[in-house]
């Protein structure tokens, strides 16, 4: 680990910590980025956990049956997207309540994934390789932090950038935001509100599915019932934390992942801080950071898309 004394603080190697937090944050970053798009279109889908776990089994099954992790990530994304479209059918076509439908989706996904997964317990998936970035990986400090990961880590960051560009610079992004801010006005202007929302939901589901597949194919890697263990809920919270902005979602996911990793590092290094306090730290620090951001930008509370969670029915 010889990264030079400057990078070691209180016995903790900050370079290794930064590399760890990027990997640790990837599943929630993927899911949160997807949910950001859905919420920007005005749909509150609380079923992220259900979509993630379906992505986890869908991806795992796809990778094991095909022998290719890439195929697995595709089937994982499709599984998540299908779940999201089920949610979309209920909330956009049958106009059901979004909060309750999202919670039901989580329940349904946890059960269905366990049923599908019955034959996949104890199986090992094909390995997802690291990307060889040659000389970049050997750079001091930056090399180990940035250039020694698998492709999904880079993909998750690229996705954040793409979503930022889409929302801010593209015409489709403008329409998506218009639909999320005021669906009646968007409808009056001739935009197809339901179609836009279904598209946004499918994207959100696919991203959550990818996050789930990353858990079952890279982080664990094995299939076990309930293996997302609440990651979907954290992803939902990260979207709110990021006040519906892509760059802040990235910050939020890395902050949460970073504090989680740091508390375990402090334990491993033998710091005499009560373990329970450390375990609470990621949640408390997320709250504190949100309070600081909100207090500095008083409009933070109004950053939510105005039509978020509201039912749209075109009366004319």
């Amino acid at each position: 680990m010889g990264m030079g004394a400057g990078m070691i603080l209180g016995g903790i190697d900050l370079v290794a910590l930064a590399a760890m937090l990027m990997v640790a944050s990837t599943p929630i970053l993927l899911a949160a980025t997807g949910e950001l798009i859905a919420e920007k279109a005005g749909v509150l889908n609380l079923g992220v956990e259900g979509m993630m776990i379906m992505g986890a089994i869908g991806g795992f099954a796809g990778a094991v049956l095909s022998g290719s992790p890439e195929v697995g990530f595709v089937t994982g994304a499709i599984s998540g997207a299908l779940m999201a479209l089920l949610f979309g059918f209920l909330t956009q076509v049958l106009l059901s309540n979004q909060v309750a439908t999202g919670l039901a989706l989580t329940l349904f996904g946890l059960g269905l994934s366990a049923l599908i997964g019955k034959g996949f317990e104890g199986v090992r998936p094909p390995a997802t390789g690291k990307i060889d970035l040659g000389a970049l990986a050997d750079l001091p400090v930056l090399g180990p932090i940035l250039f020694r990961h698998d492709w999904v880590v880079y993909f998750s960051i690229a996705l954040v950038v793409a979503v930022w560009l889409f929302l801010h610079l593209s015409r489709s992004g403008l329409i998506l935001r218009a639909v999320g801010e005021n669906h009646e006005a968007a409808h009056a202007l001739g935009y197809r509100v339901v179609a836009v929302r279904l598209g946004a939901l499918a994207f959100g589901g696919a991203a959550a599915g990818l996050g789930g597949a990353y858990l079952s194919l890279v982080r664990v890697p094995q299939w076990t019932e309930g293996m997302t263990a609440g990651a979907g809920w954290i992803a939902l919270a990260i979207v709110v934390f990021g006040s519906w902005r892509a760059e802040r979602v990235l910050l939020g996911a890395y902050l949460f992942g970073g504090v989680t990793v740091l508390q375990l590092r402090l334990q491993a290094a033998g710091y005499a801080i009560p373990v329970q306090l450390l375990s609470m730290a990621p949640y408390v620090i997320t709250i504190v950071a949100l309070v600081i951001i909100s207090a500095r930008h008083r409009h933070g509370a109004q950053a939510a898309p105005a039509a978020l969670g509201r039912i749209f029915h075109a009366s004319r």
Partner: protein
Amino acid sequence: MITLVARPAPSRFWAWATPVLAVLATMIAGGVLFAILGKDPVEAIRVIFWDPLFGANAGYFRGQLFIKAGPLILIAAGLAVGFRAGIWNIGAEGQYIVGALCGASVALAAYPAESVLVFPAMVLAGALGGWAWGMIPALLKTRFGASEILVSLMLVYVAQNLLAWAAFGPLKNPQGFGFPGSRNLQQYPSAHNADLVAGSGIHWGVMAGFAALIGTYVLMSRHIAGFRIQIAGDAPKAARFAGVAPARLVAFCLGLSGALAGLAGMFEVAGPSGQITDSFGAGYGFTAIIVAFLGRLNPIGILLAGLLMALTYIGGDMAQLMLQLPAAAIQVFQGMLLFFLLGLDLLTNYTVKWGWARA
């Protein structure tokens, strides 16, 4: 192509008929699922829906229905008020846990003194604990504009850590040989929240659930505060003109739902559960959100939705035991039931017409 036409007023007929239709549809879809898993679908549906209510030993299971539904109803009653105002308390699970911790702490501090004052003091502590945990997101929202969704959700995890700390530390049973978990309050008469009629399943928490339903009904339909809550939810901007102080409304709604969730936790720890353990929080706070919306945020609806959810849990466990259905199949079945209930609710507010229209 299907077109939906909004009804001028919700249909009274369909308001009652859709839940029945949804349950029937679930029986069919669930039956197909069970048949695929190689079980007799008719028998499975009977074990889940019929046996707990009317089968052998139904006298026992009907009581269990109240034990399971009690906390759901009590929490959902409070949540519904906030949801109507557009205030999103997602963290009832945390308020439930903190209420239980506070109630149990009072009892364990008083142990082994027998006094009629112990139980009322626990009730007060449970409500206060839940209220205080609910007031944290309220305060951060009104003072700093921090989203109550995130803060209340994060506080669930903080509460779970507090619970683990208490179960392994200060509340640990001194006669428990170093194992985690508190004394069992069922064995401490002054603190025990027993069935009011033995075997009925109706304890003070269930009574409090009924009282909360009546109380919130009166609040919403007969009181000016209910009117303010309603318009705050329907038309936030108009609410300001009508003199609604958003900060007080946020504090009221989060405080109320927190206090009721705290009470639910306290009654649970003093009664059916009996103990503070690290696994005390069993997800009632999250299920209650489903119950609130399934009941259309309306007291009678919440009562029925709570009992229905409880029935699927109890019947689901029976189906596991009697038919060896995996727990996962029961979860899928519950998910389908919720989808049908939520999706078919459309018929209450809209008429479906066949024809061509731009979507």
